[in-house]
């Protein structure tokens, strides 16, 4: 459901419709789906790289805070992105 707030204890899972991988020729992470490709920007790729059906939203936020200690307001960005990703049906929670 879109518009519903994401909570820290939820566990995002990548939808079976999409395959996530690093694409050398694009120098970025991408989502591949039937006959198409979404090229992800840097932050989006960093978040989806941690979506494995095991990590909770909290785990993902903590991992990225540890990886990018100088980034401010990262938590809100991650929650917003996960919301967008759910709306696009890239992930479910």
């Amino acid at each position, binding site marked *: 459901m879109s518009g519903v707030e994401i909570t820290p204890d939820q566990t995002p899972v990548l939808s*079976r*419709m999409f*395959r996530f*991988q690093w*694409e050398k*020729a*694009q*120098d970025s992470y*991408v*989502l*591949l*789906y*039937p*006959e*198409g*490709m*979404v*090229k*992800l*920007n840097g*932050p*989006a790729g960093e*978040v989806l790289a941690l979506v494995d059906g095991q990590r909770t939203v909290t785990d993902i936020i903590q991992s990225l805070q540890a990886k990018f200690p100088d980034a401010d307001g990262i938590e809100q*960005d*991650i929650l*917003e*992105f996960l919301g*967008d*990703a759910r709306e696009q*049906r890239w992930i479910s929670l």
Partner: protein
Amino acid sequence: MSNAGSACNGQPSLNAVPTHGQPLWLLAELTYKCPLQCPYCANPTNFASKTDELTTAEWVDVFTQARELGAAQLGFSGGEPLVRQDLAELISEARQLGYYTNLITSGVGLNEHKIADFCEAGLDHIQVSFQAADPEVNNLLAGSKKAFQQKLKMAREVKAQGYPMVLNFVTHRHNIDQIDRIIELCVELEADYVELATCQYYGWAYENRNNLLPTRAQLERAERITNEYRDRLAAAGNPIKIIFVTPDYYEERPKGCMNGWGQVFLTVTPDGTALPCHSARMLPVEFPNVKEQSIEQIWNRSNGFNHFRGYEWMKEPCVSCDEKEKDFGGCRCQAFMLTGDANNADPVCSKSPHHDLIVQAREEAELPTHQEPIFRNERNSRVFAKS
């Protein structure tokens, strides 16, 4: 982090070779053999004279080379790709190379064991084509009495095994009035994407154009009904995506064919001929073969792939047209088929001096058709090969 990604719409990336993009899409036409006889098939009409097929090792070499050049999507097509006995092996090799693998099939020759084997080999997605939403029209067009039941069964099996599924309906004057039933069937079968793809008038479809081109009224009705279904399904929370492709014969500007010649697409035909699109073989241009040249040579340096890159080749009205960067003068094959000169503007464009040919085809579509379609089979193909 909104705008996190942009759809792969074929725009060359900034760090690509300056003059053209990467071959992101590799279409492997494994064979011209097919158990069906659809009169709108995109294969060359003289396919019966081209019986050579690349070996398993040759295909794997093509996949490996194209992947190094940036290919990410691989379509297994044909003919009917299931005819190839090494299909599972090819899927497995492609998947290990990192491709997103698409099987584009009629479903005829498929069974639940093969679907499971392909899944194990790493197949990502299956597209099943239908000819119509009811058995009679479907089987008549396919030239097979059992095709429809088989397709239904296989579409259900594809979903049962968890694959993303695209259902493809080629639409034309004999099935477009059943668009509501087609969409309902797709919803029932739980398709993820539906392609309501109008006939493209090349190959067999061009020969059968009078038998296939819908009228403007048919087309407008179908588009309206499709939009109504889209709204209704979206409101009900159904994630199904419906893509409706209108025939360019009813446009006033041509399509930006293949996102530009040699910009995104690389087709390799059963005998290894490499093409910038699957229809290009008809053009009076020499195309390279993967048995003789590397994919890098073919994509970056061959005359065939460089022939219509850029704007140098254009004639008026294209050369001074402010829309040339949008549509690249339209489709080279259509220009060649209809005007005899592949450098002309695509006659779909109302600025083309040959646009009357398109207007005439629209007028002919208003008349009833009485002639039988020419079915795509070996016997008919041999007639084309001789002529």
